[in-house]
C-alpha cells in the first residue's frame, strides 16, 4: 500500500500578473517502508512538496494522502503523530534557549502523551546519545549531535513517515556518514517511510530506493537509484546532474584508481 501519495499536486503563490506557479502536476507514490528521494537544484520545488505534506501550505490543489487517508487543507493534530519533519540546518532548527530535554518534551506535551521522562531517555539512546546530553543547550552540542537531537524530536511521537529536508548538507563528510547510518538503522528498526530531499546524488543513491528528479516545479523523471547510479537516466536534465556529480567523484573513472 502506498504510504505517501501525491496526485497532480499544484501550488501557486500570488494572483493575477504576479501569479507564480511553483508546483506543476506533481505525482508520486511512496510505498510503506520505502525510502524515496527528491533531487533537483534550488528553486525546483522539492522542499515545497515536503512542506505541503507537512501542512505548511494550505492553498495547494490536487490530492495528497498519507497512509491511505486523504489530507485536508487544514491538518488535524493527529496528522503530526504520523508525519514528522527533520530540517536542513541543525543550527537553526533547535531553540537556542531550550535544553535538549525541553525540546524533546514539547511534542509530548502538545499531544498529551504520558511517561515523558522515560520516553525522552529511550529516544536519546535510540539516536546514539545518552542521559549526559539531556540538560545541555544546543550551543553545547556539535553539528552532528544537534542533528541527532532534531531526529530524536521527530521520532519521539513514533511517526510512520519522516520528511527529511537535506538532513546532512550542513554537516562534515565524517559526520554525514554517521547520520546516514543512523537514518538507515532507524528505518530498518522502526519500519519508517522516508521522503528525503537532497541535491547530493551520492547521498540519495545511498539512502533511497527510488528517486524523482525535479526541475522547475515538475517531476521530469522517476527511477530506481540503482538505475541512476548505472547511468541509465534518460532525461537530459538528470543526465546532466549525474554527469556533474561524476566529474567530482571517484567511481573508478580514473585510470589512477585502484
Amino acid at each position: 500500500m502506498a504510504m505517501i501519495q501525491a496526485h497532480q499536486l499544484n501550488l501557486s503563490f500570488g494572483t493575477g500578473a504576479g501569479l507564480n506557479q511553483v508546483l506543476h502536476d506533481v505525482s508520486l507514490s511512496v510505498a510503506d517502508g520505502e525510502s524515496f528521494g527528491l533531487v533537483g537544484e534550488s528553486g525546483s520545488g522539492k522542499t515545497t512538496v515536503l512542506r505541503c505534506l507537512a501542512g505548511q501550505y494550505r492553498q495547494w490543489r490536487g490530492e495528497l494522502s498519507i497512509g491511505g487517508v486523504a489530507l485536508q487543507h487544514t491538518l488535524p493534530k493527529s496528522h503530526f503523530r504520523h508525519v514528522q519533519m527533520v530540517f536542513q540546518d541543525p543550527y537553526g532548527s533547535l531553540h537556542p534557549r531550550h535544553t535538549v530535554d525541553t525540546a524533546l518534551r514539547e511534542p509530548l506535551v502538545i499531544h498529551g502523551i504520558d511517561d515523558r521522562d522515560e520516553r525522552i531517555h529511550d529516544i536519546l539512546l535510540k539516536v546514539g546519545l545518552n542521559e549526559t546530553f539531556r540538560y545541555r543547550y544546543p550551543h553545547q552540542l556539535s553539528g552532528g549531535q544537534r542533528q541527532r537531537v532534531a531526529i530524536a524530536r521527530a521520532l519521539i511521537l513514533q511517526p510512520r513517515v519522516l520528511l527529511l529536508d537535506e538532513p546532512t548538507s550542513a554537516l562534515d563528510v565524517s559526520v554525514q556518514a554517521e547520520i546516514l547510518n543512523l537514518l538507515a538503522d532507524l528505518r530498518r528498526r522502526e519500519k519508517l517511510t522516508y521522503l528525503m530531499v537532497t541535491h547530493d546524488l551520492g547521498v540519495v543513491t545511498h539512502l533511497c530506493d527510488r528517486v524523482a528528479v525535479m526541475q522547475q516545479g515538475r517531476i521530469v523523471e522517476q527511477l530506481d537509484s540503482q538505475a541512476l547510479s548505472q547511468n541509465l537516466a534518460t532525461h537530459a536534465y538528470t543526465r546532466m546532474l549525474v554527469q556533474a556529480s561524476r566529474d567530482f567523484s571517484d567511481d573508478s573513472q580514473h585510470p589512477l584508481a585502484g
Partner: protein
Amino acid sequence: MSDIKLNVEGLNVHFVNGHRHTHAVRDVSFTLGREKLAIVGESGSGKSTVGRSLLKLHPPSARLCAKAMRFDGIDLLTASENVMRKVRGQRISMVMQDPKYSLNPVVKVGEQIAEAFLAHHKASRREARERVLEMLAKVHIRDPQRVYNLYPHEVSGGMGQRIMIAMMVITRPEVIIADEPTSALDVSVRQQVLGVLEELVEQQQMGLIFVSHDLNLVRNYCDRVLVMYAGRVVESLAACDLHHAEHPYTRGLLAALPSMGNRRERLPVLQRDPLWLTC
C-alpha cells in the same frame, strides 16, 4: 624559484580569549606557485584560519607566529598595516563562501565591483564602469549592463558568487584565496563558477588557494592538496594521488563519502586516533 609566490613555514595561530586559549593552527608549512592548492579538512580543522592568516584578517585576540610567511619579498608577518592594505585586495584577494552575506545589500552590485577597482587604481568613474562591465562578461554573466544595476537580493546564488569573483579579480591579484566558494551552490551552478575561476587563474597566471571540505571536488579541480586535522597538516600530496593517500584520516574521509558507483550497506565511520593530534 621565481615561480613561488607564497612561502609559509611553521605557521602557528593562537586565539586568546580571557583565560581560554585555543591553538587553532599548528606548524603549518607550504609554498604556493602558479597552481591550484587545496586545503581540506572538517569544520574546526583550521583551514579557513590559515587562509585568513595570510591576509592578517584575524581579530585582535589572535596571536600569529611563524618562522616565515613571505609573499614576493614582503614579510607578511612583520608588515605594517599600511603595507598590508596594499597587499589585501590588490595582490592577494579573498573570495568568501556566501554571496548573500558578503555583498552589501544596499549597493548595486556593479558599483560594489567598481568600488573595489577604484580603491586600488586611479581611474575615472566611467573607466571603472567599463572595466566592471568587461569583468562581468569575463565571469560569463550574459547581460552585464542589466546586472550592473541589480541589487544583491535580485541575483541568484550562482550569479552572486560570480559577482564576488569578478570583484576579487578585477584588481588582477597574484594570489586568490577562495574560502569554500561553491559550498552554497547547486551542482550545476557550481561547475560554472569553478570553470570561471579556473579560466581566470590560467589567463592571469594566478595562484589559487582553495579552502574546501569537499574531497571529491578538490581531487579533480586542484593540483595539490593539504589535508588538515585539528590545526595540523597531516598529509600533503598531489591531487591525482589522493587515492593513494596514506594517512588514516584522509583515507577515513574518503571512505566515508557516499558514492553513486559504489553502494554500501553502511558507510564506514571515521575512527579518530588521538595520535593524530601529536604526530
